[in-house]
């Protein structure tokens, strides 16, 4: 009797057994893993940094920055002293004083 039942159930379950298609299940699991999105963002940052470095080197980025800084410095030296705007200077000074006062008050 027990053996007959066993045989019956084995046959029944064998008939019902079927593989389940993935249908995007694995992808959903991988996306829900902790740190997976962080890992992806790290990969993306690394990729962008590499591209930026390659472009910087191939397009002579260092030289371009040095040139731009030099031009700015020269133009400040040549024109800056002649065209000083007093009103702007006063506003900047007032802002700095207010900021200093606020800092002192917060410390107190």
């Amino acid at each position, binding site marked *: 009797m*027990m053996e*007959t*039942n*066993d*045989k*019956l*159930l*084995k*046959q*029944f*379950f064998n008939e*019902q*057994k*079927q*593989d*389940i298609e*993935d249908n995007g*299940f*694995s992808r*959903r*699991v*991988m996306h*829900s*893993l*902790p*740190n*997976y999105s962080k*890992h992806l963002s790290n990969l993306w940052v690394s990729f962008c940094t590499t591209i930026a470095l390659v472009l910087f080197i191939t397009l002579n980025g260092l030289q371009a920055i040095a040139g731009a800084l030099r031009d700015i410095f020269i133009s400040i030296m040549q024109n800056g002293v002649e065209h000083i705007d007093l009103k702007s200077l006063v506003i900047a000074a007032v802002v700095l004083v207010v900021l200093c006062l606020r800092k002192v008050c917060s410390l107190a």
Partner: protein
Amino acid sequence: MSQLNDISLVAQVVVFKNTRAFDELVKKYQSPIRRFFLNLTCGDGELSDDLAQDTFVKAYTNIASFKNLSSFSTWLYRVAYNIFYDYIRSRKDTTDLETREIDAACSTEQENVGEKMDIYQSLKMLKEIERICITLFYMEDVSIDKIAGIVGCPTGTVKSHLSRGKDKLATYLKQNGYDGN
């Protein structure tokens, strides 16, 4: 060979946090784990997929605790079993388990007579623990020793659950005209 491959993939996940290796494990075991839950939930596809997803996420976060004392599949079934019992416990507040069992046992639905037997309908006859043992033994071909490891009880107890489940199922199948032919 398959077990060695599993251990190699697990090692890659533990040491290098290699998500691609874990992806391979998920692809390999998604079908048996989802089928296991599908049988435990009596055919609730959405719920079984949620539980299976929780199982893999928990397996990933606790994969360092896999000590290779059993095969990876046995360990994964153990995780799945714990997930299922957590779900049962959380649901118990709203649904009375015994009432559902009595309802299922007293059900007079006969719509499947003469047709292909519905496995989920027949599994509803069983208590959760019997369903787990029967599903693992007959559907997933897991040995009694391994089932004992998965559910965390002695082999004698597993044999009792299997025997009771087997009797209930065989009676139900015969009553509904299934004779294996």
